[in-house]
């Protein structure tokens, strides 16, 4: 039966059809929907892990425990999971183990566009790269077979345009795959140096078996056509090649580590020109060149950065392609994502900006506070780095003899659980004074509202316990008197707490509690502005709330369909022109100071 599925849905479906028993992941665009969908299958023990390292180790343990297992993550997530990745390549599997990496060329929602194909080569792990949802489903199933037949974990590599594009798949039935026994095998499963030395030999010796498997299942294919031009490609780029060069011979690699270079040599011998068209790094190109295959066109012409698409290929490579026939004299304005109307994070960033704090930021919805008009974030590196980099900032400030009082970091509850705890313990252990602000809306919001240990719920709704962040901060060694909680909707209280923390000795923690407005979905009231009286001071505008805008006279106005009644704008209006819709406006004689 045919269905239209996204690549992420196809991974989940393929894993289910392959009899997967255990699945674990940490949310990360564009991979999040894989585990969201796995969670819907009652036959699968699917769970949100606290971070990607734990998810891979969980899947690895399940595999060694005899079950077919899957873990999934975005490209930077594989960096977090890299340690178990490399060693599991040495250990191999019991139940098949498929590790999904969902890369993000063009950084639709990521802090870099690293090309994770390099991981397969570095870890000597077989890698399959599907080109659409149908292939994603098939390769997921094949991946488990390959993993078990060749005794290696398998890397399944997709990209945003596969993960979040829909195309047709053929649905099948679930295969009943019994969970194998746990096997004691000291030399294979305990990676002491003496065992690892022997396993490395196995790692090298098994490489031909991956290509044998690919041949047996026709995973790579040559589509013979024109003898003038052959194009080597893989993944989503295959679709663009077919769109733009319908008559070219195409060598499509589905197993992209190891690369069966014999196929390229076979094609090379028969065609006049051979091009390599791939997104990202010249991964296939370099592999072919190293094997002595002459490549006539590759990254010398094909862009290294960002995504490919048919338009780019046509403009670069097809003679006589016309430029866009439509050009407009009126431009659509930038429309970036913003913190939602009523988002609790807004209050904290407002105060930090007014305090002229140095803010080390982290990854989550709150990263949006970095853009104008809030512009309240000074650094942002990767998950958990806000806390650990603040340790370094404190030490550098010490070395410089510089006042570091207003150095702080901002991290979400999910990010803190992911990789912030270790930084906080380190700050205590290594005596670094700065303020850690945990924005606790007890949900993993940016990726689409997944539950986490602070939420106190699991993906499949089992009983669990909920982590209290104040208790956690104490457990990390932060002094009780250095821990505060605050409601960030109360800007005055938030300012008081923050100022108190600048004066504290040693690491301190503020737990800022709020409810994610999307998750909560309820509205107290609305606020209105006495627009005619507005003096355009810009205070409410500087909050960066999408519900508040300047009208044609530059006076503030609030959109009632967007307002959630959080009251922050009312708190910052010096003349108190902003009030609840069900209350009367009360004129004041003079303006007040606002937080």
């Amino acid at each position, binding site marked *: 039966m045919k269905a239209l599925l996204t690549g992420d849905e196809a991974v989940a479906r393929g894993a289910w059809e392959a009899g997967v028993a255990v699945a674990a992941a940490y949310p990360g*665009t564009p991979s999040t929907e894989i585990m969201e969908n796995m969670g819907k299958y009652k036959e699968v023990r699917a769970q949100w892990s606290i971070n990607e390292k734990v998810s891979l180790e969980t899947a690895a343990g399940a595999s060694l425990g005899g079950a077919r297992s899957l873990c999934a993550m975005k490209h930077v997530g594989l960096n977090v999971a890299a340690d178990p990745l490399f060693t599991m390549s040495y250990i191999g599997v019991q139940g098949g183990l498929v590790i999904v990496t969902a890369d993000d060329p063009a950084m639709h929602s990521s802090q870099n566009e690293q090309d994770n194909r390099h991981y397969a080569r570095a870890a000597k792990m077989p890698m399959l790269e599907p080109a659409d949802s149908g292939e994603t489903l098939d390769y997921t199933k094949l991946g488990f077979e390959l993993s078990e037949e060749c005794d290696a974990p398998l890397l399944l590599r997709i990209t945003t345009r596969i993960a979040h594009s829909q195309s047709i798949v053929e649905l099948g039935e679930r295969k009943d795959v019994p969970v194998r026994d746990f096997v004691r095998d000291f030399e294979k499963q305990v990676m002491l140096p003496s065992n690892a030395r022997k396993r490395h030999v196995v790692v090298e010796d098994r490489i031909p078996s991956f290509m044998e498997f690919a041949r047996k299942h026709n995973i790579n294919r040559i589509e013979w056509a024109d003898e003038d031009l052959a194009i080597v490609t893989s993944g989503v780029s295959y679709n663009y090649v077919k769109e733009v060069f319908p008559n070219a011979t195409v060598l499509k690699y589905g197993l992209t580590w190891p690369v069966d270079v014999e196929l390229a040599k076979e094609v090379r011998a028969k065609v006049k020109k051979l091009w390599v068209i791939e997104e990202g790094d010249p991964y296939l190109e370099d592999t072919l060149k190293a094997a002595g295959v002459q490549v006539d066109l590759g990254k010398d012409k094909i862009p290294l950065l960002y995504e490919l698409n*048919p338009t780019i290929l046509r403009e670069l490579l097809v003679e006589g392609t016309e430029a*866009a026939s439509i050009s407009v004299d009126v431009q*659509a304005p930038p*429309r970036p*994502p913003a913190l939602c109307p009523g988002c609790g994070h807004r209050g904290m960033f407002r105060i930090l900006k007014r305090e002229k704090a140095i803010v080390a930021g982290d990854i989550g919805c709150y990263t949006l506070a970095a853009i104008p*008009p809030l512009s309240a974030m000074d650094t942002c590196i990767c998950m958990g780095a806000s806390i650990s980099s603040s340790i370094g900032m404190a030490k550098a400030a010490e070395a410089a003899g510089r006042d570091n009082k207003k150095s702080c970091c901002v991290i979400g509850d999910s990010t803190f659980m992911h990789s912030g705890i270790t930084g906080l313990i380190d700050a205590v252990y290594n005596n670094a004074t700065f303020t850690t602000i945990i924005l606790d809306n007890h949900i993993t919001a940016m990726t689409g509202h997944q539950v986490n240990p602070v939420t106190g719920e699991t993906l499949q709704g089992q009983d669990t316990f909920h982590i209290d962040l104040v208790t956690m901060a104490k457990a990390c060694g932060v002094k009780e008197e250095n821990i505060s909680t605050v409601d960030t909707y109360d800007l005055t209280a938030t300012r008081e707490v923050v100022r108190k923390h600048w004066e504290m000795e040693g690491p301190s923690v503020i737990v800022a509690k709020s409810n994610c407005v999307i998750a909560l979905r309820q509205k107290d009231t609305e606020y209105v502005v006495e627009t005619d009286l507005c003096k355009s001071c810009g205070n409410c505008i500087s909050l*960066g709330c999408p519900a508040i*805008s*300047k009208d044609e006279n530059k006076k503030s106005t609030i959109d009632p369909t967007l307002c959630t009644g959080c009251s922050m704008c009312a708190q910052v209006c010096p003349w108190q022109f902003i009030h609840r819709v069900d209350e009367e406006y009360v004129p004041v004689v003079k303006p007040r100071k606002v937080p």
Partner: protein
Amino acid sequence: MSENTNEQVTSILFCGVGGQGVLLASNLTTAVALEAGMDVKKTEVHGMAQRGGNVDSHVRFGKTVHSPIIPQGEVNFILALEQVEPLRWAHMGTKDTWVISNTQKIHSLFTGTGIAEYPEGAQEEVKRVFPNTIYVDALKLAEELGNARTVNVILLGVMARKMDFELEHWQAAIKKNMKPKLVDLNLKAFETGWNYAG
């Protein structure tokens, strides 16, 4: 344009602001095409709902569809849920492209706060470059139906009238792909668009 089956591929670019229902409109379209036995591919952007960013979704259907991303110059329809958004994607179309757009104006964070200007004359510019443009006050029509969130399905109805699928196919897709309690409202919304006389 290449000489293969591209003439048989219909390409629609859906666009709007996160939260307006761009993805639902594109999903209903792919459902109709799939039911009609065609090859279908679409792209999506996730994460912008509620957060006010711009959203676009490419839908392509026909005998064989290769690229899910529409090549420049091959957009047959732009369906826009917001007034200025057609201009963001105008370079993807040609003078033959049909543009069906909402008149509704939604500020971005930057235009609302004065960091950037929301341009004057967006509708006129769209009509200038795309002679086949229909602007619809879909918000007013949706409010008349009692639910402002039906702008997407109303506009879908307007566009659908210019396509080759029968009304029954669209109605079947709505019944099959929406929650039961929402079906009636959306059938009415679609019909409103289908019968829109401008």
